[in-house]
């Protein structure tokens, strides 16, 4: 399960993710993080069964969390199966099946956004 965690820097510089890992014992995978002077946002992956627990602890520490059900929105009608997205993806989300049809493994996506720019047919967009 992917969660987008937003922390406000106004509440100080508590290490929210580290705190939650220690308190809950849940191993959190930080896939992407962007933190500037007043706000931070991180994309984390947690086991499905621990999702509720992690969210409650994070919100108790002042962070807000949002479940990410989809990552890339893939428009099959616009796609021509060219494969321009395959080699620019750092997570190997894209590939071909035996008929040279594009395959999309959404679960691997970390929302870096490269494919959105690389797709000549505007068939890929991010759900953010």
């Amino acid at each position: 399960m992917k969660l987008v965690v937003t922390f406000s820097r106004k509440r100080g510089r508590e290490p929210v993710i580290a705190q939650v890992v220690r308190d809950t014992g849940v191993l959190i995978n930080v896939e992407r993080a962007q933190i500037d002077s007043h706000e931070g946002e991180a994309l984390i992956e947690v086991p499905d069964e621990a999702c509720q627990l992690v969210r409650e602890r994070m919100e108790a520490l002042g962070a807000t969390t949002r479940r990410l059900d989809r990552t890339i929105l893939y428009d099959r009608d616009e796609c021509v199966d060219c494969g321009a997205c395959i080699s620019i993806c750092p997570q190997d989300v894209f590939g071909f099946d035996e008929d040279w049809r594009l395959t999309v493994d959404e679960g691997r996506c970390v929302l870096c956004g490269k494919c959105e720019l690389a797709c000549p047919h505007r068939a890929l967009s991010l759900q953010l």
Partner: protein
Amino acid sequence: MERTIDLINERIRDGNAVVVTAERMPDLVAELGEEGALAEVDVVTTGTFGAMCSSGVFLNFGHADPPIRMERVWLNDVEAYAGVAAVDAYLGATQQSETRRDEYGGAHVIEDLVSGTSVEMRAHSRGTDCYPRRTIRTEIGLSDLNQAVMVNPRNAYQRYNAAVNTTDRVLHTYMGMLLPNHGNVTYSGAGVLNPISNDPSFRYIGSGVPIFLGGAEGMIVGEGTQHSPAGGFGTLMVSGDLKAMSPDYLRAATMTGYGVTLYLGLGVPIPVLDLETVRATAVTDADIEVDVVDYGVPGRARPSLRKVSYAELRSGHVEIEGEEVATSPLSSFRMARQVASVLADRISSGGMTLALPTRPIDRTKTARPMVETAQGPRVREIMDRQVVAITGDESVTVAAKKLLKGETNHLVVLDHEGRLAGVVTTYDLSKAVLRPERAMTVADVMTRRVITTESDEPVDIAARKLQRNNISALPVVDADRHVIGMLTGTNLSRLIGRGRA
């Protein structure tokens, strides 16, 4: 019995012709032998589906009342060329919208028309006695046009060099997004299914030959522009009726940072009349090689890192300088296969017969570069030859004095051999002032990764370096990294003053 085109067409009309795609031929020849394949197969179909920038349509709008001699015309804000009499225009695929920039262009107008969507046409004219009207604005659909004829000056490249980027920044090119430090390789073309690769001697590909174009039956006009078959880069000029085309085989696209292009399906049927045709159509992806070219070099002569076959490219990875690098096709192999198989079905069901070329295509030509009678300005013509320099072991105070005295914002830092070691700017010194607790030398505050230019570099390229890196000066270095000048934004503005920017 000698095979003739008439015999093949007779078999097509009788529904008895054996038509296979070029992808099937290598296996068929391996199984039946060349003689066996010749006896078995009547026609081999090829197909490709990819970005074909050099495409466009001639449109005839018919006359308005009162009539207008259109001088400039736009379709959904995309300008078409109107210098072909009163109510004709040529709309190029890569022309961009004046309002939506590279998200909409000629290719999108063509796709909209083929999809049954009407577009807004506006035009203006100075008005003449015979054509008094000065402006017009109307909605038109494909069926409203008298003619909509696709004429593409350069399609169906025989093969195309693969692309890589050895610089340390992302490049946005017509070969797609190229990651820094050879992070990926992109390639184009259908390899084994490519039309010209299956007839590289142009024995059956020539003027007047019927083809599949955008879902319709089109034909080969002749050699394409930049046709360069001597080096294995032949091209075709083709034509077809837009009104008979299908949006399945004609798709507008945008290469981010480059612009609009048209993805188009094109297939050529090749009659199997002799053993030489059998051999040519038995070509495989492993037989077709291209260079992997460095798009990080901004000149025409881009260096090749290695040769690679379509088989290697299609495997998903190629080795570049000891590393496994992921590849991306930009053409759709699935769609190329579909073009070849739909074309095969049309022929075997009797829906399309073949023809021999009415005129041959030259197979010996090499495309030449542009003749440039006036060379663009070079860095040496506008650079500052006075360079204020310092060494890394001097204090920042000395550096500040030199900056003030030299009336410059950039000090070149040299090593003990007099080579470029870094650059110090007023900005770097300001940072040092804010941390007075540390006594600092120039080496502590200077920028070490310096972007440079050379004296014979075109000014356009140097200006792009300044702009892209958001910097205001470039040291001009020679081959030994000795600094021979500085190029600043001020030098560039003087060039504009000279009226040749």
